């Protein structure tokens, strides 16, 4: 040690510092040596403040938490406050902030650091220090108003990247939600608007982000002025749609897609490069001031057209995406935009085509997709696209589309067949589309099937294989008819249903989202016996008292409450119909669900639907009890999908969502057990009534045992789960604590080497989410023979980032007893 520490007051040599570093990072260095290194470093910092020494000290503090208080104090007094150089002061600030990060007890100490110090450092002449400080301002817990003032001021900096950082900082402050003063919000918005005209691309991009962030706050601040500010923001952003920089344009269209209220005339003007006659006549645009009419109109004119035909696919994609929110605002706009979108399907970039289709799907879910004959050629053309994603996206839209006439219905059917012939791998999905389309267009199906019945008969008489994809598709279409709205099922010849039974496997694979194979078989056999029979049968089922109609309403309600204005075109047709009808009606809603989380940002808005779901789950129990397992499972799946949409970045929600998912999983397990038994019952019954009369007795016996088992489950279930299910409302915050344990380098091909009766070392990576180092954590290890050991995990020893801890342990297992040593 002695030779390491120079006796004189000269600065420490790089060699000395290097050796210090290795001593610090070596965990086996004795504590006394660490202490003396600390003293040497502190002395050196006192005499000649130096960034290398500073680095070492902060390294030391992070590895030896017992010294972090001392290091903190010494850095603060010797380096931060006494330093002449702003660069060193900034580095000290950095060191202090990172020390206080690892040592929570110091977090109050960093708060005590004066805002004034930070501000004065910002005002120093060094540009790089200034930009570093502004970029990292959030780490130093500066009061938001001071930050805002700083950022606003530095938007005037002559250095473009300082201006950019200042603007990004403003966006950060806007997210904190701390600024409520209206004139302040307005000030930030106006300042950002001024910078839309900056000379530098980077600054303009950042300015768009800032304009969007503050503009949206302004829009939300007062319901009375909402439309005014929204129009203002929209027009301002439109003016950037023709910027020469690709990045700026992308930013502009991204920002446009975040606006959800705009005057309709402005929207319509974005689709025409010429100033519309009606706009010219009015000489005003939305709520915008009339005196600037000409320049505003030319800013807005055709912006989206330009965006959709931009040279760069990034811009086109972004413009397509922005249409998602905008088409919800106005149906007329949606119609016009669709004409353009159909042309985008001709785009040479796959990403853009896909984005256009996704946007159409979005429009369809919101009931704003009005397909016309002129569109169909282009639209159905994408079914032949060489890209799988494109084809499947088109089909998803087709499931939802309401076709106005039989010609378009036939055209769609033919295109699907062409798709099937060219890409047989799509079969399951195509059948599913056919089934859904059939359900939605019963009348068209009936006439199409009647025309083709001869063809089907021939195919079935010739060879029962139904090799022809076309015939198989026709069969799928035919069997969907009884489920459609209205009484069309009578017109489908019953023999068609028995033909379909021969394709049971293929069809049921396609319809897994609607019914399983057994249900399908039951359904087909019902329909195939005779028309009259199937009708009465269906009527009988319809007459049953506890139909799952009530359950089916659940997803409707919840998704409506989440989406606000969500309405599917199909949904509207619903009237007091049979359960089979509503059964299929639910599909669009399932599709709607992934989009359900649309613009849910605030924590509360997520918690509300979650609580709603929890409440609905309670209602479901009665259905489980009544045995409508399929419906229940589907409802649960709906809920899950809905929940999946909430996995936004907001902190509190993830935990709540995770919890609810777990909860739903449990309910599902409970429901499933019943389902399996139900299936057994069904097969037994089928056997009884149809084929295996010889084993009549055995089957009957099995039937009775299963029935009794079901009864016992239902009985017990009514008692227990009701407690479990009872009133369940989430309030406050949930924290999800999650641990993932993986054994690296261990797979079936390269297993860990292991010799029996010799100790084995198993390295394992443990990732802990949402765990603070105040939590006491034990690792429990159990062996087959139930010997259990606990290992304490000291979280302070391992690195962390944002509540995610990573630990690497190496365990040595002796054949039965385990010893644990951590090596980190």
């Amino acid at each position: 040690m002695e030779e390491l520490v120079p006796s004189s007051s000269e600065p420490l040599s790089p060699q000395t510092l290097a050796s210090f570093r290795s001593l610090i990072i070596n965990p086996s260095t004795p504590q006394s040596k660490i202490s003396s290194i600390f003293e040497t470093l502190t002395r050196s910092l006192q005499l000649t403040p130096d960034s290398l020494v500073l680095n070492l000290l902060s390294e030391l503090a992070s590895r030896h938490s017992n010294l972090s208080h001392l290091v903190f104090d010494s850095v603060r007094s010797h380096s931060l406050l006494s330093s002449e150089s702003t660069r060193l002061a900034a580095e000290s600030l950095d060191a202090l902030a990172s020390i206080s990060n690892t040592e929570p007890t110091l977090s109050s100490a960093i708060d005590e650091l004066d805002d004034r110090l930070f501000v004065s450092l910002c005002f120093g002449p060094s540009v790089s220090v200034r930009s570093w400080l502004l970029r990292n301002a959030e780490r130093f817990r500066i009061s938001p108003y001071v930050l805002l003032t700083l950022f606003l001021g530095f938007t005037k900096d002559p250095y473009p990247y300082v201006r950019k950082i200042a603007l990004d900082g403003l966006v950060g402050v806007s997210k904190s939600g701390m600024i409520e003063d209206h004139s302040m919000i307005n000030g930030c918005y106006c300042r950002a608007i001024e910078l839309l005209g900056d000379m530098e691309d980077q600054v303009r991009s950042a300015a768009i982000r800032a304009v969007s962030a503050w503009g949206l706050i302004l829009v939300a601040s007062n319901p009375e002025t909402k439309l005014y500010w929204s129009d203002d923001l929209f027009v301002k952003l439109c003016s950037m749609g023709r910027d020469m920089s690709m990045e700026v344009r992308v930013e502009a269209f991204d920002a446009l897609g975040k606006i959800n209220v705009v005057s309709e005339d402005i929207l319509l003007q974005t689709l025409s490069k010429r100033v519309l006659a009606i706009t010219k006549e009015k000489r005003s645009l939305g709520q915008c001031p009339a005196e600037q009419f000409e320049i505003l109109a030319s800013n807005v004119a055709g912006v989206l057209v330009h965006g959709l035909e931009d040279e760069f696919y990034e811009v086109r994609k972004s413009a397509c995406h922005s249409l998602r929110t905008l088409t919800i605002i106005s149906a007329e706009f949606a119609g016009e935009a669709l004409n353009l979108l159909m042309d985008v399907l001709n785009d040479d970039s796959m990403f853009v085509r896909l984005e256009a289709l996704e946007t159409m799907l979005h429009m369809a879910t919101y009931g704003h997709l009005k397909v016309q004959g002129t569109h169909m050629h282009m639209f159905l053309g994408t079914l032949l696209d060489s890209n799988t994603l494109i084809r499947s996206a088109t089909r998803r839209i087709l499931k939802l589309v309401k076709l106005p006439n039989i010609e378009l219905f036939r055209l769609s059917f033919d295109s699907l067949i062409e798709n099937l012939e060219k890409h047989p791998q799509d079969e399951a999905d195509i059948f599913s589309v056919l089934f859904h389309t059939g359900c939605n267009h019963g009348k068209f199906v009936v006439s199409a099937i009647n025309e083709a019945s001869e063809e089907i008969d021939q195919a079935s008489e010739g060879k029962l294989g139904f090799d022809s994809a076309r015939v198989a598709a026709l069969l799928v279409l035919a069997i969907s008819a009884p489920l459609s709205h209205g009484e069309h099922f009578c017109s489908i010849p019953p023999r068609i249903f028995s033909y379909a039974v021969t394709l049971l496997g293929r069809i049921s694979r396609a319809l897994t989202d609607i019914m399983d194979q057994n249900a399908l078989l039951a359904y087909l056999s019902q329909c195939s016996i005779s028309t009259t029979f199937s009708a009465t049968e269906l009527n009988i089922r319809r007459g049953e008292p506890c139909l799952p109609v009530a359950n089916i309403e659940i997803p409707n309600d919840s998704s409506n409450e989440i989406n606000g204005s969500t309405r599917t075109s199909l949904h509207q047709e619903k009237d007091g119909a049979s359960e089979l009808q509503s059964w299929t009606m639910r599909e669009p809603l399932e599709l709607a669900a992934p989009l359900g989380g649309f613009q849910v940002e605030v924590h509360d808005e997520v918690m509300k639907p979650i609580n709603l779901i929890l409440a609905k789950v309670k209602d479901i129990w009665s259905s489980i009890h009544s045995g409508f397992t399929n419906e229940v499972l589907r409802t649960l799946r709906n809920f899950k999908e809905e929940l999946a949409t909430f996995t936004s970045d907001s902190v509190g929600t993830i935990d709540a969502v995770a919890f609810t998912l777990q909860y739903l999983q449990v309910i599902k397990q409970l429901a499933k057990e019943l389902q399996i038994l139900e299936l057994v019952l069904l097969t037994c019954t089928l056997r009884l009534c149809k084929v295996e009369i010889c084993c009549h007795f055995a089957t009957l016996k099995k039937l009775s045992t299963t029935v009794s088992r079901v009864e016992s489950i239902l009985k017990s279930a009514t008692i227990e789960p009701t407690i479990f299910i009872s009133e369940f409302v989430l309030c406050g915050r949930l924290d999800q604590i999650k641990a993932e344990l993986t054994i690296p380098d261990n797979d079936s091909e390269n297993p860990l080497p292991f010799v029996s009766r010799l100790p084995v070392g198993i390295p394992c990576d443990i990732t802990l989410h949402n765990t603070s180092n105040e939590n006491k954590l034990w690792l429990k290890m159990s062996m087959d023979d139930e010997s259990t050991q606990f290992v304490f995990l000291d979280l302070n020893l391992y690195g962390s980032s944002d509540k995610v801890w990573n630990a690497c342990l190496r365990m040595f297992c002796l054949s039965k007893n385990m010893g644990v040593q951590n090596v980190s």
Partner: protein
Amino acid sequence: MAIDSLVLGAGQQVGKSCVVVSMNGKRIMFDCGMDMAYHDHRRYPDFSRISNSGDFDSALTCIVVTHFHLDHIGALPYFTEVCGYSGPIYMTYPTKALAPLMLEDYRKVMVERRGEEEQFTSEHIVECMKKVIAVDLKQTVHVDKDLQIRAYYAGHVLGAAMFYAKVGDTAMVYTGDYNMTPDRHLGAAQIDRLQLDLLISESTYATTIRDSKYGREREFLKAVHKCVAGGGKVLIPTFALGRAQELCILLEDYWERMNLKIPIYFSSGLTMQANMYYKMLISWTSQKVKETYSTHNAFDFKHVLNFDRSMIAAPGPCVLFATPGWLSGGFSLEVFKQWAPSEMNLVTLPGYCAAGTIGHKLMSGKPTKIDLDKNTQLDVRCQIHQLSFSPHTDAKGIMDLVKFLSPKHVILVHGEKPKMATLKGRIHSELGIPCDDPANNETVSISSAHYVKARASDTFIHSSLNPNFKFSKSISEDESGSCLTNRRFMPQLQVTDERTAEGILIEEKNKKAKILHQDELLLMLGEKKHEVGFAYCCPINVSSLEETKSTSDNVLCTSESSDRCSWLQLLNNKLSGQISGGNIQDFGEHLQVESFDISVCLNDRCPYRIIDSQNKSEAVFFCCTWSVSDEKLAWKIISIMENFDCESH
């Protein structure tokens, strides 16, 4: 300082683009084109206006050519080889490569077909091209120590560029022809936001606003597909470079997607040769072509075959690209004669055809018979589809560019006079930028900023390094038309950072200008700071004050000095009741409000007295002093004080 722009061509017309710009002692010729409509001296710009003596080398600093179209480069060999200009010529690499082809092609047509007198020879073209210096996009070229030029992508045709030129602090952009929307093979124009004194822009479509290209492409493909599906032949007359490639990419793409097997033919060797140039100059094409060329070069046309004359009469559907574009003769006309009589066939025409050509006749209405010459008449039964594709920007594009660049002045060239006037009006009224549309041989002079190079003092530099921003709120007036009245008074936050504005420019004779920090000024001048102050000795009638004196109980002053202070006290009491917001500070001997100072004046000959003291023995005089900044406040207080008199009487 001024920028003089002498328009030698394309002033209120399309053709022979040529603008000579003089700025800060440099003289640049932008483009050197010819007018194809004339066959006499009018086909060239009037070069004599540049220099009467014919010494063009000393009259011009350099020539900049934007692209290879003849109306932008056609006069170049004539000017260099015949008129004798031998200075530097700048153009982009593709322009340098393609220009000789275009010039040679034109020369051949002139001399060999029309039998005209040769204006320049093949050797002239070769010699001329030797003087050309090729530049790359965004490459700053120092023509000499003062003049810099830089090329920006312009779209339009392969290698087309806008040119930025800067001499000292004066900067301008000459656009040449450009396109603000991308097409299938070329990108949109792209330029940085520059600080410009002048923008010279083309204005071919000064009033047209074009719809989405998607719709136009769809129409074209639909027409072609319908025709070939019905077994017809499609004739697409084009020029070798540009449109042919764009349409071909479009068709190739469609053929690929629709899996069509119908042959596409190119008629001439030149088109095939042009395709080769496109393949080599891939970095000048559109983003999409650039992105994909490593896997598939968009100009490697899979479905394209060479056409043979014998195939004109062959049966079966096909698509044929044939030159020239306007059906003005040559091979395209030959094919047209054969195919026009059949209803199954289709002819697509470009958006513009020169008057007098067959193409022009077809465009104007749908004639059923066309007179080829005096003796022959042609039955036209085929379908005609007009393409509205253009490589020129539309009016909206021009406005977008002008708005983006926001130059101090705009000059429009290369357009039709009435339309240019409309656009000129819009630029002026909507964007507030002065705009001109000079005719040929007119000169437009505009002033540019006068910049002085100055040294800066250390204190000034130091002061400008540290941020120094201020916030102020101003009531915005431009929102007065808003629908909500309360918003009219909404304060607008103003942010200023005046660190560079705080300097003082010193220009001394025979010395270089210098910028000082304001604190340094006095030191440099060796002067003391002077401040302008005001003073007024204000009489107040005693009685008016006495009233208050008698009523106030707590004032107990007997001696003269305390008497003085009591007068002040009284005044203070009276004033504080009437001055709202002003903070009166009492210093015993005098009162102070901001810089306004009041004390009792005992000097009968006080120079600040206006009224003679003798006549007003009843009055107490208060001497008031204040500085300029508080003038308003001062007069307010004085008027209050003088009002005491009036009240008492």
